[in-house]
């Protein structure tokens, strides 16, 4: 067991807190300032979106929140855990236990079936095969894919693949789901269905959702829109009631 505290407190109200987060990328001789001091608070159970043009730093910010990467400067907190300070191994643990990722291009493992893809986070966590299989079947039912469990990704439509990805994101009962352009590869109708599915999960399970997009329609389906431009927050609607 890691020595640092990796369990989230029970009475946590603020699920994500970014304090003056900077991220610089060094590209040869040029330094790209992807984030230039982002301050953001997301409360437990929120269903919110981060909106901004291409290159504004949305994915970069999401990666900081998701403990995939560390900021050049500033702090990122998940509940009462300061993830920006954690080492590689502990951040992997945080991602496995507390966070679910959904990507624009689904990123399912091509040689595994839908069911096996959903099992991956549980497999990484050492859950027994029978237990994780049961859980994966439930989750696939939840996203409406109970009849597609043994299909491989290349035998599924884009919308179906994204639903598998959503089921996978929920596998270890995360407190936050981070979605990077989840409808970007889908047509409007399918995109709307995916958005509604995420909303339903948020309402029923109380999982915090942060959805990155440059699609205003998708953003408007969420309860709160944070606008990002050139690596800073330029507008925050706050939670619409």
């Amino acid at each position, binding site marked *: 067991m890691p020595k640092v505290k990796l369990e989230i407190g029970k009475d946590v109200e603020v699920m994500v807190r970014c304090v003056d987060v900077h991220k610089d990328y060094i590209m040869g001789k040029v330094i790209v300032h992807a984030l230039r001091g982002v301050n953001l608070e997301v409360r437990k159970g929120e269903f919110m979106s981060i909106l901004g043009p291409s290159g504004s730093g949305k994915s970069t910010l999401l990666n900081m929140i998701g403990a*995939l990467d560390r900021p050049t400067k500033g702090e990122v907190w998940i509940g009462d855990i300061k993830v920006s300070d954690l080492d590689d191994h502990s951040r*992997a*643990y945080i*991602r496995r236990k507390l966070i679910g990722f959904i*990507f624009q291009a689904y990123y399912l493992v091509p*040689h595994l079936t839908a069911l096996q893809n959903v099992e991956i986070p549980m497999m990484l966590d050492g859950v027994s095969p029978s237990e994780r299989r049961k859980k994966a079947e439930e989750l696939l039912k939840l996203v409406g894919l109970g009849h597609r469990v043994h299909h491989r990704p290349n035998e599924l439509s884009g919308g179906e693949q994204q639903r598998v990805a959503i089921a996978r994101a929920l596998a270890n009962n995360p407190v936050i789901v981070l979605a990077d352009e989840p409808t970007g590869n889908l047509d409007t109708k399918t995109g709307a269905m995916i958005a509604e599915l995420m909303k339903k999960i948020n309402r029923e399970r109380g999982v915090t959702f942060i959805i990155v997009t440059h699609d205003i329609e998708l953003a408007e389906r969420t309860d709160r829109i944070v606008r990002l431009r050139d690596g800073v927050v330029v507008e925050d609607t706050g939670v619409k009631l």
Partner: protein
Amino acid sequence: MRTRDYFWYSFTHLKRTKGRSSLTVLGVALGVMALISIAAISTGFSAAIRHAMETEFNVKTIAVVPLFSNYTLTTDDVERIRRSISPQIITPVIISPATVIKGGVMESALLMGANISQVKYIWPEFYVAELGTLPRDEEWNNNDTAIVGHKLAEKLGLKNGDIIQVLCTSSGRPVVKNFTVVAVLKYTGMNLVGIDVDNGVLINVKYAKVMVNAPSKRDQISLILILTDSMKSAQYAATFIENDIYQGQVRAIAFAAYARAIENIDMLFRAMLQAFSIIALLIAGMGVMNTMFTSVRERIKEIGTIRAVGATRGNILLTFLAESILIGIFGTIAGVFLGLGVVYAIDKSNLLQAAIQLGGAIYIEAHPILTLKDLIISAIVGLTTAAIFGYWPARAASRLEPVAALRYE
């Protein structure tokens, strides 16, 4: 993550990339096969050489020859050595170049005068008749009895009962005498200290003396053969004869020295075969490494994804290592069967034959010998090679940054 899950995950991937994976598996299989068959060949050869040394290449034997042409050995020397070292057997031999004539055909040959009963005792394996029967002592006392070597008999078409003319020179004068062939020897392949038995005409040393030597030097002989009771005493006696009895005027050749030289050749041969094994393994290992690096390159996105959903670097390392180990396991199993097949085929085909020429020559026919130990070692080495060569690609995979891996196009 559970151990069986690493193998399960890698196995599902291997199944998806059957074509490439099976080629890599084949590479490992061939490596293990080479290892097994080479071990068997090398063990077989060593055993054959050891056997040859203990029997044909008699390590208890010494040959005494004059070192300088101005020194001549005589039958007195036989007595002199017998008195000082009392060997098991000591016998004089006369050697002279000769021409053998049969039915108008001439062949050069080697006239050898010896006490057949004693020489027979020193090299029982060589004195085996192919045609006719070897003479008993009283027959050998007939002054026209001869035994001929295999090659000479073949060249002249000789068989027992044939009359041959043997021509040689004695102090510059030609001498001709007729002999009756009583036996033809089996091929011996022996050519020790210049005595090519297969090209020889063997007669009683008494008559050889008369034929070859001038009347004034009737007791002159070419060499003395001595049999001692062990390889050690042979070496000791050889030194004693050379240094203490003759003060360096003769050369006493202990065949044990040749045996050691042959042992060295055997070691060299083994080392060479081992080098081949190592090359075969390196090729197999490179195959695994290449396949796994290709796999890592193709699966960068997958690695990024798995890392995003919570895999540690260690998880990634072990996942890819498990894949190499699986390749190693399948390759090793196939390799063991292929190896057994090759060893069986070599055994059936009598492929392992060689003549070793070294002052003398011995002819060796070996059969592969596969020990359980060699089989197990080959399997372990095959598996370990796959794991070791799979380690670098696995490490490279584990070192990818998740964000960079996800952005990779």
